[in-house]
């Protein structure tokens, strides 16, 4: 899909290996599993929990020029929606090619309506999305 997905926890790469080999639901995993035992990367992104030494469920999309474009953080007890991650990623790809546009809340995929800010659009967003 044109992106490097890296999963990150404070476990070592050795534990990642053991987990990936052991857990049946991970048998098709292809992405690199990053090891952040010091929590330094988690700290950099504000998801490190000092009390437990663990990282919260944070998802971050970084553009090819190194700009952070999306951040989502969930507490321990809530998993993430991969469809929403894919929606954000596709929107980023679209917006990178069409820098004058915006993707509204309900934008899902290529072909859905986008918004191009202009004097004409002021107060007419509803009509533009109809």
């Amino acid at each position, binding site marked *: 899909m*044109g*992106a*490097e997905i*890296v*999963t*990150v*926890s*404070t*476990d070592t*790469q*050795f*534990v*990642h*290996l*053991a*987990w*990936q080999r052991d*857990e049946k639901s991970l048998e098709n995993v292809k*992405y*690199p*599993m*990053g*090891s*952040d035992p010091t929590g*330094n*990367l*988690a*700290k*950099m*992104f*504000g*998801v*490190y*929990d*000092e*009390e*437990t030494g*663990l*990282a*919260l*469920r*944070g*998802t*971050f*999309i*970084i*553009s*090819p*020029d*190194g*700009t*952070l*474009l*999306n*951040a989502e953080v969930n507490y*321990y007890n809530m*998993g*993430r929606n991969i469809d929403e991650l894919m929606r954000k*990623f596709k929107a*980023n790809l679209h917006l990178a090619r069409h820098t004058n546009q915006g993707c509204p809340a309900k934008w899902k995929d290529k072909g859905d309506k986008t918004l191009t800010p202009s004097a004409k659009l002021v107060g007419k967003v509803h009509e533009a999305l109809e």
Partner: protein
Amino acid sequence: MANGCECLGCNVGSKVPDFKLTTYDPSKGDFGEVNLKTLKKDKKWTILFFYPADFTFV
């Protein structure tokens, strides 16, 4: 999480400082490295997916 998490500078819209991580790469069955500098050079998007611990759900 009494103290909460404090963001140390990675704000949406700002540049992410270069970082490196040691990895286990299941596609190669071997250890490796992920380096933001290299990914930028290769014009790749990067998605970081943090989770609390192995052997739990993500």
